[in-house]
């Protein structure tokens, strides 16, 4: 709602006329009618919080002002649940068609993650049952949560700062153990605590400098330079700790990693060359030509990645081939994205299901390769292989290569690995910026530059730190971060 004449690029301090005011008032009146249908932060939201697929237990999380009402609506049996305080209750969930054994975790606001009333329904982990339970909650007045909405509410409720919100996100999307470890460190506020310590020291320093600036040399507020310098050193030390922490946490410093894998002679190397636009990998019609992993840099519109070609799957390999298999496995484990190359002409459902199972849980893009040899869309059963995308490609004709590139771009710049790196880069950049400003401040102080210039350096250092904790992060960054949260987390 930007109905002020300022939107025309005029400065904030520009002129405004009463007519403009009147016009903006009428525009606001129009808008207030429209917005009555969408007071979204007020909704009570619900979503399945456990990963998709069967598990022993499934959890549905509900948060919002109507959570209490919803619990009562689905609670089966004569006794009313006691919801006056935080509680773990056993009962049955009535989904309208039958009842399910229920373990209810009740967390009334504000002592909850979102500061709202929160209910966690622990139910049998069968997907269909969980779906039906969610449907029941929706019909009773809940709204399906948007991706990341729970965490967003927690962030807005001041429960977590941005680094911890990012930690939740990174943990959800962690594709390997090192990423998960890094995410956990964030989640538990490791960086937050260190940034806050550095910030507190900086604010101390600024307080001294500002006090010194706003009182005359002869006045009681004047602070000697040595005292200011000492506090600046404390701030620098705290900042260094935050940087060290972030450096240790960093799962990878380089580019996103994309790994090509697949059965021998599926055409991985040909695809590798196609994607890189060169002739590097030794290509031959004989299976098993690629033994060592080959690497190249893949430039996409929104992301840059290392592309690694690996030896074809060979469960029975021995000797140097066995070593090549181990390298390939390790590459896949560290990958942000695995491109699984499947020979369309020879594809069989059972064999591919086995290959897919061996790829663990990493994010997989299926290339329906040599599509020129088998025209038509990939068969329906390929959709059951649990891949993020399925794309028909021919390295021979080049058909589908552009679509593959844009899919890679999308997954890498928008996906889990890309975000982990984006987060890391955001932190390191901001911390480095803060350190540069702080060092400048110290140098300026020692060089005898005007104290007001030192003050300016310190203000900028604080701004940089605030960017890490999300205090001054522009809203579009927040939007991008929160939009990537897994549903229900």
């Amino acid at each position, binding site marked *: *709602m*930007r*109905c*002020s004449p*300022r*939107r*025309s690029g005029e*400065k*904030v*301090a*520009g*002129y*405004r*006329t*009463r007519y403009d005011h009147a*016009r*903006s008032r*009428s*525009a*606001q009146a*129009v*808008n*207030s009618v*429209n*917005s009555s249908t969408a007071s*979204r*932060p*007020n909704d009570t939201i619900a979503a399945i919080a456990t990963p998709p697929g069967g598990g022993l237990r499934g959890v549905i999380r509900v948060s919002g002002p109507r959570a209490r009402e919803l619990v009562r609506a689905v609670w089966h049996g004569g006794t009313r649940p006691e919801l006056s305080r935080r509680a773990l209750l056993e009962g049955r969930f009535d989904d309208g068609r039958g009842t399910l054994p229920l373990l209810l975790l009740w967390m009334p606001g504000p002592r909850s993650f*979102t*500061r*709202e009333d929160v209910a966690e329904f622990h139910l049998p982990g069968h997907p269909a049952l969980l779906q039906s339970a969610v449907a029941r909650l929706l019909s009773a007045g809940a709204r399906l949560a948007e991706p990341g909405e729970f965490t967003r*509410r927690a*962030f*807005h*409720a*001041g429960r977590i700062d941005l680094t911890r919100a990012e930690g939740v996100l990174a943990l959800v999307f962690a594709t390997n153990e090192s990423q998960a470890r890094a995410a956990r460190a964030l989640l538990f506020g490791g960086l937050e605590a260190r940034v806050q310590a550095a910030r507190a020291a900086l604010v101390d320093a600024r307080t001294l400098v*500002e006090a*010194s*600036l*706003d*009182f*005359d*040399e*002869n*006045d*009681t507020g004047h602070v000697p330079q040595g005292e200011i310098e000492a506090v600046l050193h404390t701030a620098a030390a705290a900042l260094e700790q935050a940087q060290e922490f972030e450096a240790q946490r960093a799962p990878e410093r380089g580019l996103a990693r994309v790994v090509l894998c697949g059965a021998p002679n599926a055409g991985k190397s040909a695809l590798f060359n196609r994607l890189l636009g060169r002739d590097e990998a030794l290509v031959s019609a004989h299976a098993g030509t690629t033994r060592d992993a080959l690497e190249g840099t893949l430039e996409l519109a929104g992301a840059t990645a290392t592309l690694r070609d690996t030896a074809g799957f060979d469960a029975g390999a021995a000797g140097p081939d066995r070593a090549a298999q181990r390298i390939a496995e390790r590459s896949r484990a560290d990958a942000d994205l695995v491109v699984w190359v499947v020979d369309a002409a020879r594809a069989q459902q059972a064999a591919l299901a086995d290959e897919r199972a061996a790829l663990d849980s990493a994010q997989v893009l299926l290339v329906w390769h040599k599509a020129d040899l088998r025209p038509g869309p990939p068969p329906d059963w390929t959709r059951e292989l649990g891949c993020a995308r399925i794309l028909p490609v021919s390295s021979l004709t080049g058909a589908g290569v552009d679509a593959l590139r844009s899919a890679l771009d999308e997954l890498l710049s928008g996906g889990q690995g890309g975000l982990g790196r984006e987060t890391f880069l955001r932190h390191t950049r901001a911390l480095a910026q803060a350190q540069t400003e702080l060092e400048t401040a110290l140098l300026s102080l020692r*060089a*005898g*530059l*005007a*104290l*007001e*210039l030192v003050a*300016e350096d310190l203000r*900028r250092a604080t701004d940089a730190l605030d960017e890490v904790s*999300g205090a*001054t*992060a*522009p809203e579009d960054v*927040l939007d991008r971060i929160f939009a990537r949260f897994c549903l229900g987390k």
Partner: protein
Amino acid sequence: MESPSHHHPHPRGVRTDFDVLVVGGGHAGIEAVLAAARVGARAALASLRLDRIGEMSCNPAIGGLGKGQIVREIDALGGAMGRIADATGIQFKVLNTGKGHAVRGPRCQSDRHLYRDAVTAYVADTANVTLIEGAAVGLVIEDGAVVGVRFEDGRSVRAASVVITTGTFLRAVMHTGEATTAGGRVGEATSEGISADLVRLGLKLGRLKTGTPPRLARDSIDFSGLEPQAGDAQPKPFSAWTDRARFPLLPQIECHITWTNARTHEFIRANIHHSPMYSGRIQGVGPRYCPSVEDKVMRFADKERHQVFLEPESLSTDVVYVNGVSTSLPADVQEAMVHTIQGLERARFLRHGYAVEYDFVEPNQLSDTLAVKRAPGLYLAGQINGTSGYEEAGGQGLLAGANAALWALGHSAFVLGRHEAYIGVMVDDLVVSNPTEPYRMFTSRAEHRLLLRSDNAEQRLVRRAHAIGLVQKDALALLESVEASKQRALAVLASLRENGKRLDELMLRPNESWATLAARHAPLRELALPESITEALETDIKYSGYVERQEENVARTLRQQSIEIPADLDYRSLTGLANEAKDKLARLRPRTLGHAARISGVRPPDVALLAVHVERRRREGQHSSGPGDPTKSAS
């Protein structure tokens, strides 16, 4: 008083005696009526006593840290404070010279009587200004709009807009020990009716206090053992219009420094129960930055002594202002306390110190033109808005007076941004939050401090002032000639080299200045530039990197912070907002996200949530509104 018979037709169709009527002849009222007249309005100033216009109720000094910059801004906007201070100053001193160009605070002590006389003459000589003597007892309110002022003698004066600048006179109570008197300044009446009318308009009032120290007779002070303090050897005037050749006009005086001591402190502690602050008789909150001597002793118990400045108030009287011992202790206790101080052992009291408690209007009820949001035609400026200081009052008065006139004449409003002027910082601070102590300017309030220097006030403001008639062509010409001189000097600097390095590059070194370079290079000396220009030029060059970065910063925050919050936003319906933030936002109703972010108690996550909500509403508005709506098409 003018006869109100000759009603003029008004642009809004109302018949009025004046376009703008200013109530109160203090520093805010003076700048207000002068600004209104400059903008082209028929302006009038009403004061209890026309011989008390421009009275310096407290310290007879103008400027200082953070305040000197405001005086320079008032001058660049065509106001009177700078030139009157220059004409009546008896000591000029730039404070804080060692800490950088932006935090330098030019200050002068004026002869309080000459200041008052000069202001009175200046206002009387201004075309378009009518003076009215009389006690204003209330507002004329019609259909919720303020259309005039009622006076004690029963007469009413009608005006298109009214500016109230009554300072500490609203329901004022003076305390000297256990004795209390009604009144805002010794010997003057208080103004109850206007307070009542403001409440009737639905305005929320708060209560503050301020204090003033005793005045002593000069011939009773023993200066022999005291450290004298002179002004600057080369005094600098505030105003661009002051004739440098004949400056300073008046003989310059010395002040003296003395100190409180253990005996003083002991005495205060023993008598603290007599202090109205400590006995609870004063409820208003006093300023932390200018504490009473009682406060200094009680709060900073580890300090062995506090500085006291003895400042002569006038060339023609022997009144000495005792800067540093503001007090509201009983008269006899004050005397005994002051007599413990070196040099003041036999000091004779001409007037005792006292504390004043007064009403102020919570300024978040004002817009950034200082107009009262809920009462069209009413403007407030000065201490009534919870500020302290002549400079703060003058700056607000100028802005309120100009806007009252622009409004009355049907023109666009004049708003100063935080990046343009300390006046802009002050008004913005006032309208987004409520002062919990009298608001005084500090340079640290200005995040763009390096841009808001006293040396570049004209560059920042003259063109904007000229656009609405606050200053005339001569001011523009003066600015252009200064800018041309700077350009010429810059060209000369860039054309000369020393060991292969250009002089403008050399100037970046901490140990170089215009003076050091001019000493070595004749072409610089030949330019024969006044120090005011060379100093500004030097700052421009030395600070260029920082200034550029601040300018980038300004551009970025302007984009982000100028996003408007719908006026009808129901904060209580937003979950996720912390309760404190919810309360404050609902009460203060910030106009933009920038305002919201600066309210204390509103934390970044709250602002982020607000931003999401505002953006969402904007998008929904776009989707559902017709294409013909002009307010959305450009969003």
